Structure formats: C-alpha cells, structure tokens
C-alpha cells in the first residue's frame, strides 16, 4: 500500500492506494483540483460539490458520445465481417479454380499419354482390312467351288 499526498482546492489530503497506482491517483487529483479551482467563490465544500457535478457532467457527456459511436463501430464491425467473408469466398473460389486447373492439366497429360492407346486403332483398321482381303479371297474360292 502506498501513501499519497494530494492537494485539491488548496487543501492537502493524505490518501492510500495500491502500490504502482500513485501516478494515476495524482493525475485524477489534478483533474479534480483543476475543476475545483475553476469555481470561484463559495466555500470549499461548494467548490468540491461543483467540481464533482462538473466531472459527473463530463462523464455523462463522454458516455453519450460513446453510445453514439457504438452504432458506427457496429457498422464498422459489419463492414469488416462482410469484407472478411468476401475475402474468404474469393479464396475459396481461387482454390476451386486451382483445383479445376489441376484436374484439367491431369486430363491433358492423360490425353497426351493416350497416343499409345489411340495408336491401336490404325492397327485394328489394318487387321480389319487384312481380314476383308482374306474373306474376299474365301468368297472367290467358295464361288469357284459352288
């Protein structure tokens, strides 16, 4: 626990606070002191009363501003969320496009390696033509025999 001596409206006050909070307490006391000194005339109690009222007014005003700012931050959060979801959608789309491209490349590679299979067709054609030759020769022989 730390002991701090405050000076507000010309009167000293001895106050205890947690260790490490001395500077903050001195700063707050300076704010109160400034308000109290701003009020001319009247008793010390009256000065402190007005200082407290003015600080309460400041606090209320600040709260009002924060409340007004809330919708803006809401819309900002919504905009950020929208942008994030759009970015995620764009990433998904890109990933899908990459996947499609990879599939197309694989298909192309398969087609390029296919000529071995495709080359079987001319071989079949040649075999069919040879069979046609042989059956035609057979037909000629059968016609001669008949």
């Amino acid at each position, binding site marked *: 626990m730390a002991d701090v001596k405050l000076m507000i409206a010309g009167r000293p006050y001895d106050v205890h606070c947690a260790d490490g909070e001395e500077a903050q307490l001195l700063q707050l006391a300076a704010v109160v002191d400034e308000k109290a000194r701003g009020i001319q005339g009247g008793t010390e109690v009256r000065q402190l009363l007005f200082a407290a009222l003015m600080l309460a007014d400041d606090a209320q005003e600040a709260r009002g501003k924060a409340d007004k700012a809330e919708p803006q931050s809401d819309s900002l959060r919504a905009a950020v969320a929208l942008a994030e979801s759009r970015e995620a959608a764009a990433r998904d789309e890109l990933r899908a496009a990459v996947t499609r491209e990879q599939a197309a490349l694989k298909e192309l590679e398969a087609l390029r390696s296919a000529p071995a299979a495709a080359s079987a067709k*001319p071989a079949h054609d040649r075999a069919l033509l040879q069979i046609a030759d042989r059956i035609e020769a057979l*037909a000629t022989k*059968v016609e001669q025999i008949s």
Partner: protein
Amino acid sequence: MELDLDESSLAIGRIERALSRIEKALANPPKQPPSASAAPAADQSALRAEVAAVIGELDRLIAEADRG
C-alpha cells in the same frame, strides 16, 4: 458436303459384301455335276483352315475392341 469413311468402316463394308457373296454361293445349286465340281480334299481342308483362321482373327479383334 464432304463425307469421310474411316478405314475400319470400309473394311467392314468389304467383309459384309464378301460374306454375302459366300452366302449366295452356298445357297446356289452347283453349276456342274458333283463329281466334276467337287474340290480336291486338300483344297477343302485348306478352305476350312482358312475359314477357321479368319474366324479366330475376327474373334481376337472383337475381344480387343471390347477391352477398348
């Protein structure tokens, strides 16, 4: 208009026509008496062997085509 038949279609057409000729020849009665027209046994045997060989070749081609 330009039509293009591939070699396999042409070959199949030729095979169909040759088979039709064989069918027709077998359906027709012999032109001469059997004794004069009968082919020698060796020719008959060679003919049968050729028919069997052609059928075997066709079976092989069909099996290959089925395998793709």
